[in-house]
Every structure is written in C-alpha cells, then in structure tokens.
C-alpha cells in the first residue's frame, strides 16, 4: 500500500459522483415510470415500467465487510450479466440489475458457487444491519460480524425462502450507541456492559475534562474525587446504568469487562408505516453470555423467536404486530423466555409501560 500521488492539484467538496452516471440504461429511460413489480423467485424481482420495459434484480447476500477481491468479483459478474450495473441495498445486500432474464439463472449459479446465496426479498429474513464490533470500534461490548455470521448461518433457510408471515428484520449493535437499526427492528441483538466503567486515575486528568465528564452521565453517577492527591472522579455504582456515555467523552473510563459483558435480545420493532406506526424494539432477553466464536445461546434464542413467530403469526403480521395482537404474556409463554424485573421499564417514560387497563388474557 505504497502511496502514489498522481497529481498535485487538490480537489475538495465535489461531493459524491452523480448517480445518473451509474444507472442501467433501462432504469435511466424508465426512471419514475415504474408500473408494478413481481417476484420471480426469492431474491429475484422483476420491475415493469409503464413502457413495458423490464428490469430484473438479483439480490445476493453479503457479509458487508468485503474485500476488494470480492468487490472485483461482483464487478466482473456485473460485466458478464448486467452490462456492468449493480447496486447495494439499504441492508447491505448486493443487487445485480439485468435486462435479460436469461442471465438470471447463470448469475445465480455463479453467485452460489462463490458462496453468495440469493434471497432476502419479501417475507424472508434479509441481511442483518450491523456495526463494527471488535473489527474496528473501541466501544464494543461484543463483536458484530461474528454474531451476524453465526445467526445468519442458522437462519439461512429464511433468507433463501419467503415463508415467514411477513418481512423479518434483524439488527446487531455492539454497544448501546446502537449504530444501525437496533432500536426499531423485528429482532435486535445488542452488546451490553453490566459493570460501571473502570477509572484509570493515572490517565484521567491528562486526557479528560472533569466537568464535561461529570455532565456526560445521564444519571449523575459520576462525582469529582481526589485520588492519590490528583483530581479524578468516582462512580456511584448503584446509579450506573452502563450506558458508556462517559467512555465516549473520556477514554480513561473504559467499560470492557470480559466476565460481565454480554448480549441482550430485543423484539417487535419496525420502521415502515405499513399497517401500524413505526415501533421501538422491546426487551426480550436481558442477558446472554458473550460466547465467541459462535454465540450458541444467542443463535438459539433468535432462532427460537423466529420459530415461534413463524408458527403463530398471521399473514402480513410483523413480529411486533403479532405480539401486540396476542399480548406480551403470550409472547413470553410461547417462547419460554422468563419474564424478569429487568423487563419492567424504569427509565423516563416507565409509567406509560405499566398495564393501565384490565385487558388481561387468562
């Protein structure tokens, strides 16, 4: 990776390339003129324009973390079957855009051979929106990519088939910052801490401003303290809710703790306005151990929820919509997940989550 400067002139603020340069000719000439679409097979869509023109999309799985080698593979497949046109989706799948339906099967075959299954459309489980984890972030309570790989291996059949009652969208985030979609997903997997930050009293005065640090704590758990004659802080353990915000503003407050970090599982969120309004994801399992490389407890928990949902929900019912219809007690009963004190909200809007009617099923 030797540096090879090409030209001296410095260009700035040009913005991204204009998307128009990257559009398939069929798309370009039918832009804004689409009439309807059909699904030809899981992962294969056909969009029909008012003009009668058709564009075929073949959606393949991607680990999102892609080497340039794989990207070049995608590029050459696009050249071979798609006139060089491809795109990525908002859930990090890759989509090949074809005007010739005869190319669909050969493309799918090559993708399969290279290990990129086709699917993720309609009532399937699409790719998992996820984050950096141990691959790149300082903040992570767990890895992200490894969790995704483990879970999607187990849910693979639901990616290549469309047999669920509705779309099911999963997200992974490696800390409470929730880069990604955790707070509004059908199922979310979230890395969590369960211990207050350790305080590096040696480092702290050098790298952090104490007042900023103190005010970063939403619960007021951080207090000024003098340690070894130096200005530092202390954390009142009972008040800490392990949010990690102090660590974000001050590197001398690391949260990592192999013995206590772990995973929580969340369910029932959604983003679309279809039928019901968008919803936040709600706590299902407060804690599962961090068990790399395969996180068997997490995989089992997610697979179980998917399974119970698939068996019980009605057509067009997203996970959260199903739960709202049958009630949370039923969700806990059918999944066998124990209901604990941690499920009961005690944050800002807690009171509104208490059951304020006698609407009860027995």
């Amino acid at each position, binding site marked *: 990776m030797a540096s090879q400067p090409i030209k001296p002139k410095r260009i700035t603020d040009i913005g991204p390339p204009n*998307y128009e340069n990257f559009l398939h000719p069929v798309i370009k000439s039918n832009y804004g003129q689409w009439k309807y679409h059909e699904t030809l097979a899981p992962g294969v869509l056909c969009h029909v324009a008012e003009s009668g023109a058709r564009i075929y999309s073949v959606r393949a799985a991607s680990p999102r973390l892609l080497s*340039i080698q794989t990207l070049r593979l995608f590029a050459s497949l696009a050249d071979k079957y798609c006139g060089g046109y491809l795109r990525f989706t908002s859930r990090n799948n890759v989509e090949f855009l074809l005007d010739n339906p005869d190319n669909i099967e050969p493309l799918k075959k090559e993708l399969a051979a290279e290990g990129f299954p086709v699917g993720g459309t309609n009532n399937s489980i699409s790719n998992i929106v996820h984050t950096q984890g141990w691959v790149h972030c300082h903040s992570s309570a767990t890895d992200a990519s490894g969790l995704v790989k483990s879970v999607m291996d187990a849910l693979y059949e639901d990616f290549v088939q469309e047999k669920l009652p509705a779309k099911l969208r999963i997200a992974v985030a490696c800390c409470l910052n929730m880069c990604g979609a955790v*707070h509004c997903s059908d199922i979310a997997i979230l890395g969590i801490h369960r211990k207050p930050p350790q305080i590096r009293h040696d480092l702290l005065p050098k790298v952090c401003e104490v007042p900023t640090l103190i005010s970063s704590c939403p619960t007021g758990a951080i207090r000024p303290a003098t340690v070894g004659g130096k200005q530092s802080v202390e954390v009142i353990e009972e008040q800490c809710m392990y*949010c990690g915000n102090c660590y974000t503003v001050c590197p001398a407050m690391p949260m990592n703790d192999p013995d206590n970090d772990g995973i929580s599982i969340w369910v029932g969120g959604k983003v679309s306005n279809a039928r019901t309004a968008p919803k936040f994801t709600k706590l299902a399992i407060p804690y599962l151990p961090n068990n790399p490389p395969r996180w068997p407890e997490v995989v089992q928990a997610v697979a179980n929820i998917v399974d119970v949902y698939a068996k019980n929900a009605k057509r067009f019912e997203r996970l959260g919509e199903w739960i709202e219809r049958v009630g949370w007690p039923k969700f806990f009963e059918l999944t066998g997940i124990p209901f604990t004190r941690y499920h009961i909200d005690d944050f800002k809007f807690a009171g509104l989550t208490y059951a304020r009617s006698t609407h009860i099923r027995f």
Partner: protein
Amino acid sequence: MADNGKPKTELLDQLETGPWPSFVTEIKKAREGSPVCDDLLGQLELSYQEKKGHWKHGGIVGVLGYGGGVIGRYSDIPEQFPNVAHFHTIRVNQPSGWFYTSDAIRTLCDIWERHGSGLTNMHGSTGDIIFLGTRTNELEPTFKELTEAGFDLGGSGSSMRTPSCCLGQARCEWACYDSMKLCYDLTMAYQDELHRPPFPYKFKIKCAACPNDCVASIARADLSIIGTWKDDIQQDDAAVAAYAAGGLNIQKDVCDRCPTRCMDWDGATLTINNRECVRCMHCINAMPKALAPGKERGATILIGSKAPIVQGALLSSVLIPFIPADELLETVKELIGRVWEFWDEYGKNRERIGELIQRVGMANFLDAIGLDPAPEMISAPRDNPYVFFQTKSESNGN
C-alpha cells in the same frame, strides 16, 4: 503463528463454515496484497479469545481542510500487532441509492488497494462506503485519488452526515418523489457542513420515497423526508378482482389490516374511503398491480429521530405534513436553514436536534423556526393541565 507464517485463527476459522458468506474469509482474501490483514486477524482472534476489544479511543485525524470523514483508530497492543497500530477508517460518500458501474467499483478497489487494508464495508450504517483501516500518512493520498476519481468524503463528528436514500424512482413504482435526486442535491448543497463540523452534534438526513421507508429514515435521521400523496389511491378494479381470484383473502389480509378500516370489500368491488386513509401503504403493498399511490405526490417532513444515547431513542415526528414533490428541494433547504440556526443558538454540546426539541418543547421550536402548529404534528393533544400561558407578553416564547 501458524505454520504458514500467518497468525493462528482457530476461533475465527470456525466462522468460515456454514452457508452465509464469511467476513473472516473476506479478511483472509484481502491479505494477499495487505500485511495489515494478518495483524487484524491476529488482534481479532485475541479479542475472540479474551472476549474483549483491543482498539483505543480514536484521536483526531483527517485530511487537510476537512474536519470529518475519517475515524481515527489505534490498537491498544501495537507492539503485538504493529500493522494495525493505526487503523483509521475513511468514510467515502456513496452515490445516491448505492448504484455503481463495475468500473466505479474497480476504481474504488484500486485506490484502496494502493492506500489501505483492502477491506471495506459496503456500506456503513449511515450509508457511506467505508474504507476499513489505514495509517495516518495514507489519508491525504487516498483522498487525492478519491477526489480525482470523482469521489469525496462523507461525514463524521459534529457535521452534517452523509445523506442517504432509498432507490425510489430508479426502480420502485411507489416512489412519490425523486429521493435519489433530492439526496444528491442536498448532499451537494451542504458540502461545507458535511466536511467541516459546524454543529453541536451530528445531523443526519434520509430520504425515503414512500411510507414503507426502505431507508429507515423515521428511525435514524434527524431529518426524515418520506414520500406520500394527497389525493386518492389509484385503483384498478380488474386487477383487484384478479388478486381475489388468485387466492388473496381481500377481506382478511387487506381490509382487516387497514389501520383505519377504511376499505370495504363486498366480494366483488373494493371501495376505499380515501378521506380516512392514512397512507400506510399496506393495501398497495399487498396488491402492487391493482393499487398505487395517488397522483398528487410529495413528501412529509419529520424531525428528530436518533438512537438512545443518552435520553432514550426517538422516532422522527411530523413537522410538515405535505410538500409537493416539485417544491421539496427549496422548501427543505429553507427549513433546514431555520432548524440549524435554532440548533446553533440553543443546542447544547452533543445535543441532537430531536433532544433539543424535547427539551424546549415543540411549540417553542415551531415559534422559533416560524412554523404554525398543526394537529398533524401530534398523535394527541396534551393530557396534563400544565400550560405555560403567554398572557404576559404575547411574543414570549415560553
């Protein structure tokens, strides 16, 4: 070290089995040209063993004249893994809708082969092309090559973040406005705010061309622009009948799932009371050949969503119920200007716009940006009697 001179990756290797494509395989693929990847694998294997990350808080690194676009990252055990001692990511602004030609992809690969790990994320959660891991001294050269190839950096820190959008009119029959163009135009309009962090905190814009919101804008954008329509749903009765004949249970699966139950199916004809329809998309989603959004199209503007840190997650809430498609760019730009002005004046450090609105109250925010209150902005009026009446002086914003 394993026999091949490569680091031992016993745990990670287990992630190369199974049908889902493996990120470990990707890292291994990339090590052909890049010794960085060996150290990345080594450090990652250690994290898997210890259940603990090994990255330090990033310092401030970047390219000349930009305050954003690069996330600094350093190993906390550089002695053991010197090639990832620096391991910064570069956020490259994606093209609208993540459309590429194979040539564009190869150009990016070539640049990144020359200057970084050869690893990418396609794409980051905000939407950027992520170049995953390089050293400080490679930042400027990478940037140079990128701009010469027509690419520029995305946002990070307290800047406007890279806007993103669903593919909209490019391949979707439901697009109510041109989300790709609006996303591009806004990105171009705010190059300065994108590259030189001017704000109390990050500001994200996402453009979805219909209420299905395929880019999750209502949950993950400070400004969410979501397509909708004002007139009646377009309806093709013959196609409805065909769906019924094809086995769709129109009563149960369509009518009974309509949130306002404003549809009537008598076994032969579907009647929609369009005045009651809340444009949820469900019936259209269920029968794409029979129903379509109306012809008077535009977008709803919503404000303020974000992840939970630290006051709890927010969903965006309605700010302007409807703007016609052809007025979107100008209206949104004007609105953004006023929102930023207010945020600039009243926002605390690290306070997102949604949090600021929560703090000062929506009514005061509306006053400040000069919008009239409308009942579409709320799900219900207040249920508490604690009204701050403005009898003292009518202009007092509190």
